[in-house]
């Protein structure tokens, strides 16, 4: 990453005025992957944070330039692997929009249900990982117990637990599993019972509250300026839910609230995600019994060719706004593809949020930003 002289300077010499430069990452328990933060400290107080990215950069955008419009969808699962369904949906929606493919209603319902399940699974994992960042190990296991039910449902229907690749242009790859509905209902029942556990263990805990309240504050103006989306922006009072602004699939048919908090601190971000899980449950409850009969995939041509032009599709992943931008020359492969990942913009606000706080606050801030490094690096 650096040339040799810089490394030595970074690790052995004190900076001006007794500053201490530590390399947090690429292997560090709290960076959840291979994020590298060069943190300048003054005692315990953070003076500057500089992210260094690229440890898991696979140049997916370049790869996609040589893949057809059917093939490139699977790659997007490998970006934000916790919301792979939603990423896949974004790509499928873009191809459908470009080629005016009609998507059967059944497929739309299935997509929305699976997207919301993915969102819950992602938030569950985040909850566990964040509690772990703050030193509480046990909620991780409780959160994973519920997440396991979702991955089982995914395994039944999609055949995979993490990188599903279940969404295809025109619908979904195959029909839902016969037991899908009963299993989802069982999950909803258990989730509603167990969600109080998180309140006892985490939300109401005095230590947790004092660790997160007033920590990593991001004002509304800054959230907009830094391009933050998703729960990070909504905790700062920015209304930015793509499911509300530009509904896709059947989101305009369901009732749900956009969760908005105004404090902008780590606790607000935490609360937004917890409440969002409940909203997701609400969406699933509305749809699960009324999945219409019919085809699960629309009629598509064998070879997909996007017309010449530019297409942009925005969706709301668990982390925020995910955008796919395709410039097509009319061939079977895109000329240029750009993925606008939510984590990348959210990360850029980290330095601003954590400056002047303690190392422990950095963990709380980073935990509530919910960074997924492959999503940032792409």
């Amino acid at each position, binding site marked *: 990453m650096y040339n040799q002289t810089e490394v030595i300077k970074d690790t052995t010499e004190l900076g001006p005025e007794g500053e201490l430069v530590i390399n947090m990452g690429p292997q560090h328990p*709290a960076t959840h992957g291979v994020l590298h933060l060069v943190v300048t400290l003054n005692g315990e107080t953070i003076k500057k944070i500089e992210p260094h990215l690229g440890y898991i950069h696979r140049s997916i955008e370049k790869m996609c330039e040589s893949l057809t419009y059917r093939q490139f969808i699977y790659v997007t699962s490998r970006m934000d692997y916790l919301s792979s369904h939603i990423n896949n949906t974004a790509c499928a929606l873009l191809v459908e929009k470009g080629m005016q493919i009609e998507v059967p209603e059944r497929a739309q319902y299935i997509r929305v249900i699976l997207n919301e399940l993915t969102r819950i699974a992602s938030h569950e994992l985040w909850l566990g990982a964040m509690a772990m960042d703050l030193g509480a*190990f046990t909620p991780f296991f409780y959160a994973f117990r519920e997440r396991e039910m979702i991955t089982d449902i995914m395994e039944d229907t999609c055949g995979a637990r993490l990188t599903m690749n279940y969404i295809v242009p025109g619908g979904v790859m195959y029909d839902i599993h016969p037991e899908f509905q009963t299993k989802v209902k069982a999950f909803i029942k258990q989730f509603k019972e167990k969600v109080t556990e998180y309140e006892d263990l*985490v939300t109401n*805990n005095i*230590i947790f509250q004092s660790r997160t309240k007033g920590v990593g504050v991001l004002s509304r103006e800054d959230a907009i300026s830094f391009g933050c989306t998703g729960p990070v922006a909504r905790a700062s009072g920015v209304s930015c839910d793509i499911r509300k602004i530009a509904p896709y699939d059947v989101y305009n048919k369901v009732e749900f609230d956009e969760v908005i908090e105004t404090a902008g601190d780590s606790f607000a971000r935490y609360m937004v995600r917890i409440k969002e899980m409940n909203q997701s449950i609400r969406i699933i409850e509305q749809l699960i019994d009324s999945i219409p009969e019919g085809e699960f995939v629309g009629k598509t041509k064998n070879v997909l060719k996007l017309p010449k032009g530019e297409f942009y599709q925005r969706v709301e992943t668990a982390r925020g706004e995910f955008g796919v931008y395709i410039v097509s020359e009319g061939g079977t492969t895109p000329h240029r593809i750009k993925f606008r990942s939510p984590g990348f913009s959210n990360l850029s606000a980290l330095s601003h949020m954590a400056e002047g706080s303690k190392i*422990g606050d950095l963990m709380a801030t980073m935990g509530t930003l919910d960074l997924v490094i492959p999503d940032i690096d792409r």
Partner: protein
Amino acid sequence: MFSLEGITTATQDWLLIKFNPTIALAIECVIVILLSITLFAFLGLVLVLMERKVAARIQIRLGPNRVGPGGIFQTAADTLKLIMKEGLIPDNADKFLFNLAPFVVMMVAMLLLAPIAFAKNFQIWDINIGVLYISAISSLSVIGILMAGWASNNKYSLLGAMRSGAQIVSYELSAGFAVLTIVVLTGSLQISEIVAAQENGWWLFKGHIPVIIAFVLYIIAVTAETNRAPFDLAEAESELTAGFHTEYSGMKFALFFLAEYINIFIVCAIGATLFLGGWMPLHIGHWESFNHIMDYIPSSIWFMGKTFFLIFLIMWFRWTFPRLRVDQLLNLEWKYLLPISLFNLLLVTVIAIMGWHF
């Protein structure tokens, strides 16, 4: 009735018959050293296994269950692995201090073993300032930690050691005041007398509110003093990777690990002695038959039972709570625990002077 007291007196008598007193004393010393080292090793293995099992049960897992029945040899296997590992010394580290630090921490833990009464009349050294001795020696462990943090030439270690220093120095106060509460009530610093004073009832159950407060304070303070979650800032896995022992590997790491668990055992043993009556059996008022049955349980089992109950309590804390931040940790001590314990000490002193206690 089985009693450790009988064994010790028999051994001593036999030694005095066979040898002259000086040699007998020397042999006794050797026996004590061997016994305490054995106890150390045994406690290390048991406590680590217990921690893992408790954590597993709380976290709806099974825990270690592959080595031996129910995984009871897991820690022995781990120790074997750690012994075989290479002890790395980082570049530019202060080699002498780096190697010394784990032994300092370990020695402090060993010294603390001396005044603890494991059973009726089964004590290495019934020093007349026992409680003071414990308070004095236990604060030495911070030196070992600071040494380790500084000598490692690692910034994480240094940060961890500094945190640990601030933390232990602060929480010594509350722990000390909590201990003083009992000393004031008993009127003695000697462990055996403190235990003897609880013959009619343990201090915790005698119904003195200041004692109950002192007990809570003591548990919080010693949790912090032993660097256990929620006060494990010196290690703070998610912040400082492993804190002061980041650079240690192999047996030197194992010594730190062992010292941590021995320290827990010792502070819990002292807690049990001060508040839960040490080896005293549970006696309830005038239920003669009940008291008699309780007397039949050997005193060593009473002592170990109480100690392990407190150890379990501390483990329960660890697997439930998130970690505090460093400034909150010091806030908690200086703004909450210290005023409360000062007030508490004042209260108990008034009670003792007025003779309201029983």
